């Protein structure tokens, strides 16, 4: 299954060391957000809206405040006053400050069931919970709108009184739930379709799904009398929490310190802030530390799901199977406030293929659901579902193999994408070729109601900003301070890139994730950027340490730095070949006689560098009685550029694949007519269990990224894009029924089989 990608070129990279933080995690000693305990700490809870859409007429907290043990109550009145037009930049473009504040604590309206309204701090959790039941909120209930197509209708209830559509970059005065319309165009799509031999068009729907991290959101805050605010939280980016909390609270950023605890999963969902400012306000009012923990229902109903979507896709191909034109219309549910990953869907829909004539129109639409948050390759899975299943249809019409049609059209270096990006060296073709050559694909699948499917997906790499510092200790070990949340082993993959430069045992590098007061600015752990960008910063820091160590050796030997070199893992005196020092020996000498060595690395790697492609092969068996789809075999193939720690690369591929399987078959938010989520538990919102899936076979492809010293491509996300499409294709192969709505849950399978039997009463449905 896994190929160990270690090779002679590298000493550390490509090996599989035990992670530095592993032991404390397996013995239960690692401190996650909920484990924070501070002297005099109070506990809190948040009252959430029971309505999907309502105007808040009044809030009466007097009875709650009178309850013994209740220490403070806060509402949006405790947040700074916001003007409708105040804008802030949170690193992803300008955002209306009112939207950010209102999502923390609702002011004039509640926009989804689960919208936070009141925060309470009490002596213990039980009192806080009891206090919530004493709060009286008077609502004027409004009609909700919970699906994207309903929200786009002219007569749809409007969520925001002031929201107007941004039409291709121009702000219009049309009041609407459509926050933005974006368009990309390449070549001449109209002519492309006219010249095509085959044109097909279909509509696709995907359900709202949740990232489903096992650790609920949390936030603990201390507001000291001098105005110094410290926040402990499990977040994908301490600096983004710092920036957002300072903006929401209108507090100087220098007075906000954020301490990132260990984090129990995020997948994009722990980039926004929810509880942190509420804990801060409660601490300011009480003078005590306040800890807030979200309930699981709060997580489902109040935090970022990934958008439900509507996609309409038209493809044109010539007789050889070459794609000649594409036209995609996509509309994503942003949730209560604008900002779905619609623009990513527009970028990704045609990203795996060279299509000379293409147009994409994307719409960002607000609905009465929680504000959507990023979820692993945000927007890519929805569009991969559309294009990858339609490609299968074209291949079938032309009698082509799944890989044949993909390889014929695969994007490569120089391919111009619909959003006008021209690819540098990428590994799309190589992942497809690896799939075609795999044991899985070359092993026949037999038996009734069984089928095989293939699909490919894409995600780009964000570069952005990272920095690390490295202090050399007297024993030759190194303390490596970084600022990227470690969400799946990145401390070690970053330390390995540092260690490689200096040929140090990776155990001698001690990586630590610093708080916002200990390390310079780092962007979030997201966009598949951490091993890539923070690893790059660690590489630079190691080069800096190397230069300084060369100076220390030169001082010791009373030479110029030019007369010392680092080669064959030792510092060498070029004037006297009998003299050389290991890193450890030199560290000891330098710590006694010279100034301390502290290296730094700092990068800003921009946007859209590299990019990773993932291909899946999946075998399924469908039970025609129950409609249950069983995954018999699953192979995930992905371009890692260079796998620093292959086990954690495989882990990303396996984890993303299984999230994609859940998205395909099980997961969705159920809403009733009032817009209330009816399955906000892990029993009813069913993520895959160990029993639902087989081993996930992995094939790591390595097409080096030209813009990284070791060729790293971020591998965190592309893996979630292909599974729903691959499974859809496999189900089609098994049953002859093509699904265009997710999830493909048992009742839909049974209904589709029944419809097929009705239409073709004399034909066996499958297995013939």
């Amino acid at each position, binding site marked *: 299954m896994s190929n160990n990608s270690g090779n002679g070129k590298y000493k550390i990279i490509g090996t*599989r060391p*035990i*992670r530095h*933080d*592993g*032991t404390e*995690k*397996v*013995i*239960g*000693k*690692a*401190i*996650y957000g*909920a*484990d924070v305990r501070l002297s005099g700490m109070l506990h809190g809870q948040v009252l959430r809206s029971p309505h999907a859409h309502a105007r808040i007429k009044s809030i009466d907290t007097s009875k709650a405040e009178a309850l013994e043990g209740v220490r403070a109550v806060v509402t949006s009145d405790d947040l700074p006053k916001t003007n409708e037009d105040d804008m802030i930049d949170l690193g992803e473009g300008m955002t209306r400050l009112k939207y950010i504040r209102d999502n923390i604590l609702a002011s004039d309206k509640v926009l989804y069931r689960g919208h936070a309204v009141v925060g309470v701090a009490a002596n213990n*959790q*039980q009192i806080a919970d009891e206090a919530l039941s004493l709060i009286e909120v008077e609502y004027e209930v409004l009609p909700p709108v919970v699906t994207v197509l309903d929200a786009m209708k002219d007569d749809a209830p409007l969520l925001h009184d002031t929201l107007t559509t941004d039409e291709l970059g121009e702000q219009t005065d049309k009041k609407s739930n459509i926050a933005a319309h974006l368009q990309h165009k390449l070549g001449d799509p109209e002519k492309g379709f006219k010249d095509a031999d085959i044109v097909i068009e279909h509509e696709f729907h995907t359900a709202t799904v949740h*990232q*489903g*991290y*096992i*650790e*609920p959101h949390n936030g603990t805050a201390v507001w000291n009398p001098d105005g110094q605010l410290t926040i402990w939280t499990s977040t994908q980016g301490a600096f983004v929490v710092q920036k957002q909390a300072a903006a929401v609270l209108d507090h100087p950023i220098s007075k906000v310190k954020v301490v990132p605890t*260990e*984090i*129990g*999963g*995020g*997948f994009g969902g722990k980039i926004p802030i929810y509880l942190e400012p509420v804990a801060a306000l409660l601490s300011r009012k009480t003078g005590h530390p306040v800890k807030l*923990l979200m*309930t*699981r229902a709060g997580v489902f109903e109040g935090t970022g799901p990934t958008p439900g979507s509507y996609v309409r896709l038209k493809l044109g191909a010539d007789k050889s199977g070459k794609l000649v034109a594409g036209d995609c219309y996509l509309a994503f549910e942003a949730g209560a406030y604008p900002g779905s990953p619609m623009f990513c869907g527009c970028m990704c829909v045609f990203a795996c293929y060279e299509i000379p004539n293409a147009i994409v129109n994307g719409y960002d639409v607000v609905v009465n659901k929680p504000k959507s948050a990023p979820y692993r390759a945000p927007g890519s899975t929805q569009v991969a579902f559309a294009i990858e299943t339609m490609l299968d249809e074209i291949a079938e019409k032309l009698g082509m193999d799944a890989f044949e049609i993909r390889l014929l059209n695969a994007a490569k270096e120089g391919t111009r994408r619909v959003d006008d990006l021209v690819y540098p060296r990428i590994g799309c073709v190589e992942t497809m070729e690896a799939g075609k050559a795999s044991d899985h694909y070359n092993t026949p699948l037999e038996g009734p109601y069984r089928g095989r499917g293939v699909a490919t997906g894409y995600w780009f790499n964000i570069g952005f900003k990272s920095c690390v510092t490295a202090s050399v200790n007297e024993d030759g070990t190194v303390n490596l301070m970084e600022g990227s949340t470690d*969400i*799946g*082993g990145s401390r070690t993959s970053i330390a390995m890139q540092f260690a490689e430069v200096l040929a140090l045992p990776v155990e001698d590098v001690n990586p630590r994730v610093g708080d916002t007061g200990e390390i310079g600015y780092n962007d979030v752990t997201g966009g598949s950027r951490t091993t890539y960008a923070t690893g790059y910063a660690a590489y630079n820091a190691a080069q800096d340490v190397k230069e300084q160590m060369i100076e220390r050796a030169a001082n010791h030997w009373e030479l110029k730095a030019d007369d010392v070199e680092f080669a064959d893992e030792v510092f060498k005196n070029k004037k006297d070949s009998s003299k050389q020092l290991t890193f450890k020996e030199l560290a000891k000498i330098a710590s006694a006689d010279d100034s301390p060595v502290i290296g730094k690395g700092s990068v800003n790697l921009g946007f859209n560098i590299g990019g990773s492609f993932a291909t899946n092969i999946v075998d399924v068996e469908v039970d025609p009685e129950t409609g249950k789809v069983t995954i018999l075999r699953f192979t995930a193939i992905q371009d890692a550029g260079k796998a620093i*720690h292959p*086990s*954690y690369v*495989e*882990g990303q591929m*396996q*984890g*993303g*694949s*299984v*999230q994609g399987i859940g998205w395909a078959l099980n997961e969705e938010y159920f809403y009733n007519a009032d817009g209330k989520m009816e399955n906000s*538990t*892990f*029993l009813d919102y069913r*993520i*895959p*269990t*160990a*029993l*639902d*899936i087989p*081993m*996930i076979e992995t094939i790591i492809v390595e097409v080096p990224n030209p813009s990284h010293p070791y060729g790293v491509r971020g591998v965190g996300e592309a893996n979630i894009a292909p599974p729903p499409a691959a499974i859809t294709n496999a189900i089609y192969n098994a049953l002859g029924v093509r699904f265009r709505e997710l999830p493909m849950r048992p009742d839909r399978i049974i209904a589709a089989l029944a419809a097929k039997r009705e239409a073709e009463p004399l034909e066996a449905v499958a297995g013939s």
Partner: protein
Amino acid sequence: MNKIHIQSKINGENIEFLCEPRQSLLEVLREDLGFTGSKEGCNDGNCGACSVIMNGILVDSCLVLAVEIQGKEITTVEGLATVDGLHPLQQKFLENASLQCGICTPGFLVAAKALLDQNPNPTEHEIRHWLAGNLCRCTGYDKIIRAVQDASAVMSKSA
């Protein structure tokens, strides 16, 4: 509310505490006794992050009242390693990279220990069936299953 006096053995140590009748074992372990290795993921018995062993039976500590452990023996994740080193399951979880974020890991370790205690050589299907009450969102379970298989092999050899 009158508190109730409970005597129990946790990770081999005799422990006494006072608790309210409403308190879950998870709450008492985490908030009163300092065993924060058991995690709360759902508080309704669906994620398994708070798994502990009670008199040899695997339970979700969020679904057990603290008063129920009177006279009983509890094993939490903190009780797996000894002064001599890690439990083979812990070691194999590390070697197999079976954890990414690690929040579900204590529950999986405790659940897997309960399995191997009563079935030292489980099949892959038996492992998957037993661990179906523990949710992991990061790993896709592959490396967790392999770690349990490896630990089973090591423990059988040394037994």
